[in-house]
């Protein structure tokens, strides 16, 4: 089951893959390329991933989300390559017996993905320039190790 793909993402694919008759609720989150970033016009975007680790991070995050929130299903896909405005870069689908769990689990999954998934986005601005967005250092970087030490291993 591929979680990092160059193909356009479709919500119904994830819903079909997570069908579960015990569930009364689903939540799908989608991250979409929007036409602005920090006040600048955006024409498109390109995503790259470190594939071997990215697949594993998503697989583990699905399992962690299921166990942590007691939801029945969690499925995550992230797109790479060039994306147009309005296209989805990431989809998270969660299913549970009751709706509150799906909302909570879905939000956890996307928030955590943003801190762990080795994916980078390069904005193409409407003025013709481009640039990588800065982000969150992954664990094991000096920055996170120092922060962790400074917080007294809390």
């Amino acid at each position: 089951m591929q979680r990092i793909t160059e193909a356009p993402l479709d919500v119904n694919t994830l819903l079909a893959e997570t069908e579960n008759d015990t569930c009364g609720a689903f939540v799908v989150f989608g991250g979409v390329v929007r036409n602005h970033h920090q006040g600048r016009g955006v024409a498109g975007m390109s995503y790259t991933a470190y594939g071997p680790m990215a697949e594993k991070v998503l697989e583990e995050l699905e399992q962690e989300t299921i166990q942590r929130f007691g939801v029945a299903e969690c499925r995550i896909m992230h797109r790479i390559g060039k994306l147009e405005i309005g296209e989805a870069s990431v989809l998270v689908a969660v299913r549970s017996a009751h709706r509150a769990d799906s909302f909570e689990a879905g939000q956890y999954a996307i928030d955590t993905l943003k801190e762990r998934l080795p994916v980078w986005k390069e904005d193409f601005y409407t003025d013709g320039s481009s640039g990588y967005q800065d982000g969150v250092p992954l664990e094991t970087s000096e920055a996170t190790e120092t922060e962790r030490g400074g917080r007294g291993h809390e």
Partner: protein
Amino acid sequence: MLDVQFYGVLQQVAGTRSLQVDLKDDDITVDQVLTQLRQDVPALSAHLPRVACAQGESLVRRSDAVDPRQPLVLLPPVSGGRGPGQWRNT
């Protein structure tokens, strides 16, 4: 020789997707490779504190020994969009 691969903004900074680092011996840590890299590509220095390293599917720490048979992969900060913080340390 160890294959070092760059992702994200590091490809721009290094001007390449990968380069070879000459290992003095087989028993070398991630930290030692990065020290060598700072000398070979000074422009990387400012980025390295916020870079994580991986081999294969897994992150490796600065103090870990490097497996010379597979590339050392340098991963800059990820695409971000900060979480609300409520999930940290829980």
